[in-house]
């Protein structure tokens, strides 16, 4: 006999937890449509702040910068992380497999200052180059590589390697086998990894703040809006960024889920 009381209390706790997790998101989305723009009083539904957001050129520039950084970091992460996953699959070394997770342990603030120190020494002092969006790309890709490698690795672990031999046996060269058999089976993992890295890069603040120099990305813009005078526009901006993240992550999870639960 299943205890109904136990079931009920578990269910209640689950619902309360979801409410707790989604409360911040719900509050911001609700606020972004509040005519008064104040968290204290509901002034009626309005898209006024979205309108103001659209007219804000600084935000537009920051959004463009963020997009460029995220695209660059994603491309680099995929280009480096996918071969890494294939390499790890061949090397079968537990130590190396574990090493891929090391970038995730390092706190963002520590990596930010480490990157900054190294950058100062190598680029600024030796080469005379300044920080900019490209340095954010380098820093984000450093983490992105790990995420892509991990997602593609799990995909490879489920990959039936005998299909490669079957393809060779059926007359396809190594290259054609890779293009027609290996890649199509791994692609959802690569795309999922790319979506994750893109999302992380769009949302990432701490490292970008330290490595962007005088450039401003969206999270940096949001941070300064939050720290130095909140205008209701920030709520609209936050709601949009949250929405984009949720859509991208759902897409990534969908791609991954297909193989995780065959």
């Amino acid at each position, binding site marked *: 006999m299943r205890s109904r009381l136990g079931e009920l209390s578990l269910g209640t706790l689950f619902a309360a937890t979801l409410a707790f997790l989604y409360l911040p998101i719900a509050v911001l989305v609700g606020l972004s449509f509040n005519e008064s723009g104040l968290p204290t009083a509901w002034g009626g539904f309005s898209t006024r702040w979205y309108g103001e957001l659209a007219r804000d050129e600084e935000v537009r520039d920051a959004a463009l910068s963020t997009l460029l950084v995220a695209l660059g970091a994603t491309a680099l992460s995929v280009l480096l992380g996918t071969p890494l996953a294939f390499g790890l699959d061949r090397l079968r070394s537990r130590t190396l497999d574990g090493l891929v997770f090391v970038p995730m342990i390092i706190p963002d603030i520590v990596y930010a200052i480490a990157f900054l120190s190294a950058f100062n020494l190598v680029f600024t002092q030796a080469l005379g180059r300044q920080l900019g969006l490209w340095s954010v790309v380098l820093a984000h890709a450093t983490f992105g590589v790990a995420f892509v490698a991990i997602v593609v690795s799990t995909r490879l672990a489920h990959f*039936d390697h005998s299909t490669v*031999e*079957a*393809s*060779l*046996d*059926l*007359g396809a060269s190594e290259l054609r086998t890779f293009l027609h058999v290996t890649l199509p089976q791994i692609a959802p993992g690569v795309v999922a990894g790319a979506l994750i890295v893109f999302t992380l890069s769009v949302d990432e603040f701490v490292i970008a703040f330290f490595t962007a120099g005088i450039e401003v990305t969206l999270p940096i813009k949001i941070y300064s809006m939050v720290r130095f005078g909140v205008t209701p526009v920030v709520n609209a901006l936050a709601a949009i960024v949250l929405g984009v993240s949720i859509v991208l992550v759902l897409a990534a999870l969908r791609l991954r889920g297909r193989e995780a639960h*065959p």
Partner: protein
Amino acid sequence: MSEPREVIRIEGVTKRFGAVTALHDVTLGIREGEFFALLGPSGCGKTTLLRLLAGFERPDRGRLLLDGRDLVGVKPYRRPLNMMFQSYALFPHMTVEENVAYGLRMEGLRRREALARAHDALALVHLEGLGGRRPAQLSGGQRQRVALARALVKRPRVLLLDEPLSALDRQIRSEMQVELKRIQHTVGVTFIVVTHDQEEAITMADRIAVLDRGRIVQVGEPETLYEVPETLFVARFLGESNLFSGTLELGEDRAFLVDSDVRWEVDAAQARRRGLAPGTRATAVVRPERTIVAAATRPPTPAPPNLASGVVAETVYLGAARKVVVDLARGGTVQARFESRGDGAFAPGEAVVVGWEPAAAALVVASDEPTGE
């Protein structure tokens, strides 16, 4: 009398993986159009031999000839051989017909023509109408047929099958044994099948090579292997057997295996053919269906030259046949099998005599096994 043409000639092939020798100086010829089985326990090297032929491994020594041409160094995709994988290795991201047409597309055939031939191949394996499905939507037996069609559609010189039936249920397996035989007849392609299942090999193959720890121990037709095994390993690997060992005493026209208290009479001509010298320890292998059992009160007439008394330990009803397990008075156990006809049912504990004719035994060099199984 000319031997049938050989498609494949394996000459002195040796393959090592690190310290393990998977194949040791293997020499073997496979004939045009035959259904050939490589039989042996797991780890005997049979799959390695298949993978060498497919081109996934390279021999350390020796040659692999296909129609007289050496295959060593030829890439897998340039060999006119196709393989059916144990796991089937179907491409999960393609439909059934795309799977089957894949090899043809790689040959440069147009999509339409490739699909048309794929449909023919699917018809051959009775999968018409399933071409649009994904492998994940098929049953195990259907997947196996797709794998077969995919390998056959390229009309290979030789089809290699790696444990083709091992992933199937018992019921479908025996159906597929017959089916594979039929398909091989229809297409006339040489089949080389790897299996660890002796019954499967006996049912399907024209000839069988038995492998043990990287060496070929005997090659022959199923009947020969079963009736005249040349080694104890072959005798025991193919079917059940009763073993009677002793030191060979070879006379003009009679021969005996002498153990402490008994003299088993064996076929002298066979002992000579086998090149067994007098004084060697040899074993007579007697199949259960060639072993005679009778109640001690009614011994068989005429009495076979080899008789031993014992007690029934167990009787097993097998449907068409009945099996009797007898504990011999001198030690050891013997199994006998005969058609069940209602009569001749023995009861456990019953005193019986067990006998066999010299002609019923196959002589092999002895191991140190005790008399009986």
